[in-house]
């Protein structure tokens, strides 16, 4: 039983990991938070769910569509909330991305209504049993897709010129520009990738609960913030580890205590961490926190 809960927790954690990666990429590129990413994940999830249930599109296509929608929404958020906002005002992009989040939520409820949407199961009938442990098809999909995307992201950041450019811009954008890196394009690319990850996280989370609601954007943002604070702001690997931890803690809380305490326990944990170690549990990406 405990083992099963641990595995469920890790599975939940992988979806958190994607959204945390998504937030951390933007923190790295701009030292700014994109508060509309939760809503971005929500839009992707709702659209993916609608495609699957209304249009009978296969999961793979719906998933790809969710990625594309996430990318587009994040790109638009960049243009509205970051590109033309003066860098002098640190809180300005926080406010304007919160604004974009509000607009996304209201637009979605206006266009497709405020009902919850069902996400049909994928790979029904597939089931792996190892001793007492049981993993169903949906969980298998979540695990493998999240793992694959994380690995792809790491490979992209560390092995390709554009990935190096993203890290270079995150170190020193002006200098990167002097080296011939088109900085604004790289930042847009970072937002697009971050939106793709948010979209993936949104639909995979929907898949794990079999339902999506247009009001989860804010909650997703909140969870992601807890994860990245715990893992160290801008620390990509720290974020992934913290995501898995929080996934496990939330699942265990729900299983053994009560669902009401789920968020509370996570908040407390993060609060205690911050008091003891303001830089997060893991060594931070030096430079970023100092500059924020």
């Amino acid at each position, binding site marked *: 039983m405990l083992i099963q809960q641990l595995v469920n927790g890790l599975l939940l954690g992988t979806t958190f990991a994607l959204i945390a990666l998504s937030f951390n990429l933007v923190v790295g590129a701009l030292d700014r938070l994109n508060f509309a990413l939760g809503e971005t994940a929500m839009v992707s999830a709702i659209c993916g769910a609608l495609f699957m249930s209304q249009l009978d599109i296969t999961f793979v296509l719906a998933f790809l569509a969710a990625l594309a929608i996430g990318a587009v929404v994040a790109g638009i958020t960049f243009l509205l909330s970051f590109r033309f906002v003066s860098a002098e005002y640190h809180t300005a992009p926080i406010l304007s991305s919160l604004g974009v989040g509000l607009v996304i939520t209201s637009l979605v409820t206006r266009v497709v209504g405020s009902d919850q949407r069902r996400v049909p199961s994928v790979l029904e009938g597939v089931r792996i049993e190892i001793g007492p442990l049981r993993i169903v098809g949906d969980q298998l999909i979540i695990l493998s897709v999240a793992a694959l995307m994380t690995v792809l992201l790491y490979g992209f950041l560390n092995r390709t*010129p554009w990935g190096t450019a993203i890290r*270079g811009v995150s170190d*020193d954008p002006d200098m990167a520009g002097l080296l011939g890196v088109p900085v604004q394009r790289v930042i847009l690319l970072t937002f697009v990738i971050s939106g793709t990850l948010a979209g993936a996280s949104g639909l995979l989370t929907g898949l794990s609960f079999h339902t999506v609601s247009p009001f989860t954007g804010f909650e997703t943002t909140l969870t992601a913030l807890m994860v990245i604070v715990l893992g160290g702001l801008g620390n990509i690997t720290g974020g992934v580890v913290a995501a898995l931890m929080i996934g496990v803690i939330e699942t265990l809380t729900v299983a053994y205590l009560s669902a009401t305490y789920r968020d509370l326990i996570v908040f407390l944990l993060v609060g205690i961490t911050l008091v003891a170690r303001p830089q997060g549990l893991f060594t931070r*990406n030096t430079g970023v926190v100092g500059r924020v």
Partner: protein
Amino acid sequence: MLKSGRHTLAPEQPAAALVSGTPTLQVRDLRAGYGRITGIDGISLTVSAGELVALLGANGAGKSTFLRAVSGMIKPWSGSVHLRGDDVTGQRSDRLVRAGMAHVPEGRRVLPTLTVEENLRLGAFARRGDGDVDADLDGVIARFEPLRERRNQKAGTLSGGEQQMLAIGRALMARPTILLLDEPSLGLSPRLVGEVFALIRDLASEGLTILLVEQNVKQGLGCADRGYLLSTGSVVMTGSAKELLADPAVVGSYLGARGRDA
């Protein structure tokens, strides 16, 4: 301060420029600044192919502002910048790199969390897909031997001198037609300063066109063909390095007690 405003010691265009035709870099009447504060007020300057030109002046004279306006880090208010005859005024830095201008800014600015090799490769970002990058990488590392063993080390862990080498090497990776160097000696010990200037002389003798910004008039003119002296945002004097060094006004106003000691 000089008594007279403009003090031209030599004809505007030296012989070298006339021979090679279009100058590599031609700046006309450039004005720029930050906010409302004027940094440079109408600077004109020419660098011909193969020349090493020094731009000199005390801190606050507008040297860095000038370089920033030329290389697209800030937008000039008026005036023009031509690179090999093409108007590139106010273009973004990454476009200018592609057009052949590499700028090593003040303070080196290596990308600290990237490795030495990644820093160098990023210098060739605009040349992606061109197969010579690997060869150039080896070339640069051969030139800056101490970087070889640090190839996979994070650039932020290098010493000041190594970072300066990396910064120059990284700029060379773009295969620039003109190299802008902003106070390469800043913050280095006198021994390292000597090494950096020896390197600049080498690069110049290999035919690279260089615009060097320096606060130290003696060092700067020591390796340059020609020089421009800047004071509070304008060119107050220009001429060949020899003539400038011999001018008592230059020695008096810029070298001060320091120059006489050295």
